[in-house]
């Protein structure tokens, strides 16, 4: 599947992105391609520029120079809303869920279907149930407040919302941070399934073991540059570690 999609055009292409914060050069000309149906992991030490890159892609901050192409279209200026409307959806680390509202309302938050003046509750519950089932997220009752769910289930709700928002490329920032073993396994399975279903996935992770489990490609960043992008089936963890630390240069 992966080989097939790699032949086609990338869904997201960034070219020579630079970004400075005052004197600090956070990104020094970064280029990257992401395909639908593929899990791309971005790894790197703290301060390598991963989060800055992700924020530029999702429109939260604007690059100093460089181009962003989404679905073959060059983007002039991205903001969170346009980025979302082009199909790029970020699942934030804090998940941005409303704990006192139930699962269905969280999935539809901000885009509730209306029936005249009122929210179409029937449709919300029906469609959420369908979405949760399609994603194979295990949530026994969608009328339960999100605050009562486990970490993995909450992640599932956030993913369901991202997809419902029309996301084709989903960006995860440390999706399994602060999660137990069983929970993270579920989340990784979900991410893999997303790629199999034809969504593009970018994950930022510090956990190389997980990265090698689920990613098709690994993009290694170091000090604002991309050192290399390698296929996980043609590389091993030691190579990646030495690229992250810079030992490969020596």
């Amino acid at each position, binding site marked *: 599947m992966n080989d097939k999609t790699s032949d086609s055009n990338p869904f997201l292409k960034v070219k020579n992105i630079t970004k400075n914060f005052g004197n600090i050069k956070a990104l020094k000309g970064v280029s990257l391609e992401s395909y639908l149906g593929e899990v791309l992991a971005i790894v790197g030490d703290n301060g390598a520029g991963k989060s800055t890159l992700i924020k530029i892609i999702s429109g939260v901050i604007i690059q100093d120079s460089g181009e962003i192409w989404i679905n073959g279209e060059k983007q002039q200026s991205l903001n969170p809303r346009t980025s979302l409307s082009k199909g790029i959806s970020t699942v934030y680390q804090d998940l941005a869920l409303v704990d006192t509202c139930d699962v269905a309302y969280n999935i539809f938050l*901000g*885009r*509730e279907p209306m029936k005249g003046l009122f929210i179409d509750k029937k449709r919300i519950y029906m469609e959420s149930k369908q979405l949760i089932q399609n994603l194979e997220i295990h949530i026994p009752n969608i009328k339960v407040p999100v605050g009562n769910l486990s970490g993995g289930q909450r992640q599932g709700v956030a993913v369901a919302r991202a997809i419902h928002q029309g996301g084709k490329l989903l960006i995860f920032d440390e999706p399994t941070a602060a999660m137990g073993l069983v929970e993270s396994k579920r989340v990784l399975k979900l991410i893999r399934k997303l790629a199999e279903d034809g969504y593009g996935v970018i994950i930022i992770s510090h956990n190389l073991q997980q990265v090698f489990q689920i990613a098709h490609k690994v993009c290694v960043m170091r000090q604002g540059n991309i050192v290399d992008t390698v296929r996980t089936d043609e590389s091993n963890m030691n190579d990646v570690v030495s690229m992250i630390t810079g030992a490969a240069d020596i």
Partner: protein
Amino acid sequence: MNKDFKIALQPYRYRILLLFILFFMVIIISFISSYFLTLSNIKNILDQASLYIILSVGMTFVICSGGIDLSIGSVIALTSVISAFAMKADVNVIIAIFIGLVVAMGVGFFNGYMISFFGINPFIVTLSTMSIVRGATVLITNGRPIYGFPKAFTYLGSGTIGFFNCPILIAFFVTLIGVILLGKTRFGNYSIAMGCNEEALRRSGVNTNKYKTLIYILCGLCSGIAGLIISARLNTAEPLAGIGYEMNAIAAVVLGGTDMKGGKGSVIDTFIACLILGVINNGLRILSISSNYQQLLTGIIILVTVALSEYKQRRKIKTG
């Protein structure tokens, strides 16, 4: 099946507790005094509770969204004085009412605008407007009450339609609108979501500032309605009317199970809480117990009820 039923029942647990308290008090007081459960006294209780119901419905939305509005007592006085001036200037009653309500909503808009767009703490903003509005009301009236209104206006406070007084009917109507707004519309949904996680709501593309301002406008409107009822009932617009009413409204909302931190609330429960407070006041007055005891008892009941529900909540979280 049983478990599903329990989950379905969970949101109504607090309401059942409130209803239990209400019935318990009604039964006790009616045993002591035979006058309590008469039709005219029930009407009396509802008539007195109607003001607090109207105020508390607006306050429910504000507290749900994680805010507070201390200015409603002052808005009551301002609204009644403004419409009184209008009526004294021979303006049509309907238009005078309309002007009063617009002014009330204007104060609400000012509160909401300062809170959302300037990011000032709601407590500070509404504490200031409480003072500003009261001061302005006293200034424009020179501290003197205005009295003597057309019949069409006083009908609002003391007229009856069928069995019920006008204020009771208005209170029912406001409650109904509140229930629909909170439970079935985006406005209500966002009020709750805002109180729980405003950032999440903003990231979902919702203009939170707009909705927050609307919430305070609604609260202003409710206090405006209450203000008109007060001046219609007394046939007097009193610049010092409504002092301390904000505390009663907050008490009713809190007793109704709305979380002061926001993110949770129910208009129906607020309504029941107002009835409970109404029954306490009326019952104690019938039993000719001093009003000092009334205040004491009201405070204790609120504290015990809320503590009980918090305690249950905490135990539920601990045991998972």
